[in-house]
């Protein structure tokens, strides 16, 4: 890897974050964390990240969806790859009828279920980063 990639995690469960962050740290990513959607959006708007790991069920409901919606409207954030990490697939199916597994929030995204095996996590992160990069170079 030429340059250390910067990741942001938005998730309201600090214990879960601890587990996932140490896997990513060990794989030599630079990881920042926001523990609520508001801080998360602020971090996204003020700093540069290469990828977002987004929890869906936060606070009083599917607040992660709100983050994704705002990202979709923002021309800069729209291009950031997102790994959606959710506690429950069935709820996703409920929120997105007809799109049970892959909601397509933004241009490049993937969905995994909590808890996520380290191997799968690292695979998804690196493939999303790669896909986003290819998209960018094609645009140029």
């Amino acid at each position, binding site marked *: 890897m030429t340059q250390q990639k910067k990741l942001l995690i938005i998730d309201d469960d600090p*214990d879960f974050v601890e*587990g996932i962050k*140490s*896997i990513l740290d060990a794989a030599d990513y630079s990881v920042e964390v926001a523990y609520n959607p508001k801080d998360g959006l602020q971090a996204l708007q003020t700093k540069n990240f290469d990828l977002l790991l987004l929890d869906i069920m936060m606070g009083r409901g599917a607040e992660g969806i709100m983050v994704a919606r705002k990202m979709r409207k923002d021309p800069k954030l729209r291009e950031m790859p997102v790994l959606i990490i959710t*506690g429950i697939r069935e709820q996703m199916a409920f929120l997105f009828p007809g799109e049970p597994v892959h909601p397509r929030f933004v241009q490049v995204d993937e969905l995994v279920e*909590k*808890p996520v095996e380290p191997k799968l996590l690292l695979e998804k992160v690196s493939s999303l980063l790669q896909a986003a990069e290819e998209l960018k170079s094609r645009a140029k």
Partner: protein
Amino acid sequence: MNNKAKIIIIDDEEVILDSCTMILAGGPNDVWTASNGMKGIKLVEEVQPDIVFVDLKMPGISGMEVLDQISALDPTIVTVVITGFATVDSAVEAMKKGAYDFLPKPFTPDEFRLITRRGLERRKLMLETIALRREKEMLRENFAAIVSHELKSPLGAIQQNLYAFMGEPLTENQKARLERMKSRIEDLIKLIHSWLRVLSVDIEKIKENFTTISVPGLISKAIESVEPHSDRKDITIISKIDEPISSIEGDEVSLVEALVNILGNAIKYSYTGGQVIITAQEKERHLELSIADTGVGISKEELPFILGDFYRGKSGLMAEESHGLGVTISQRIIEAHNGRISVESEPGKGTTFVIRIPVVQTKE
């Protein structure tokens, strides 16, 4: 908004209407009256009353018909028929049709008040029952969401940290213990998923995605998925497929799940080194699948409950973690395929589950 009881009296005798209105005057209620069935029904539609008194003998549409129409409008409205002495038989008839009670003419003010009070109590109970039933349904649905988030989240957080540990330098002994913790938590998460499936998933929905399924393929997929468990207990799975067997219509993923649950139980309740035998044959346009083990068996007392609602067997041999949900889920899946499942067992000798599912008509 007012909490006054709404009472309608339908009678062609003006004196009845007037006296009833007077008896109820001053009470915590509002009273409307109608002098024939047509007007009465219109009033019921407008007012949505708690209780309606209906004279059985009226010109125009009969009291019986008024009762029918009210119950079609809202079956929770309490109806009481007013009847002359000569029409007691028809009062009984009316009660068979759903009227709550009858009031024979002539009646005293106290009799009328009493029957009104009892009728209103009945109405209250009916509304409460409906509200409770609705609440129960909501609880059931919400429970799934609560269980998923409140129970799964902490388990997920623990598991995620265990995953992270596994990548760090550890002694063999630490690694082995972490591996055990990981697998126990995995089981818990699976158990929660099973609960969710029983509580919240409408199994009938799988009918929308039925395709044609080959039976031997189905069986081998199910066996493949339980093999790690049978290997661990040194149990041989023997499958005897009496070919040719016509295909069946169904949802393959669910059917494999149904078989895996039954096979899993057969392995779970078998003695080490035992055998599980699956036989498949076509009989009278049905696929007949039997899964037989030579394990601990199920006692006569427990047997009737195995295929009821979920149940956890408590045989002499303490099995590995067992949850009776599996059989319940299998039963529902099989029933969604218009099939049936039955069980026979003898303690100490073993258990046989038999599944019957209709095959596709044309033989290939």
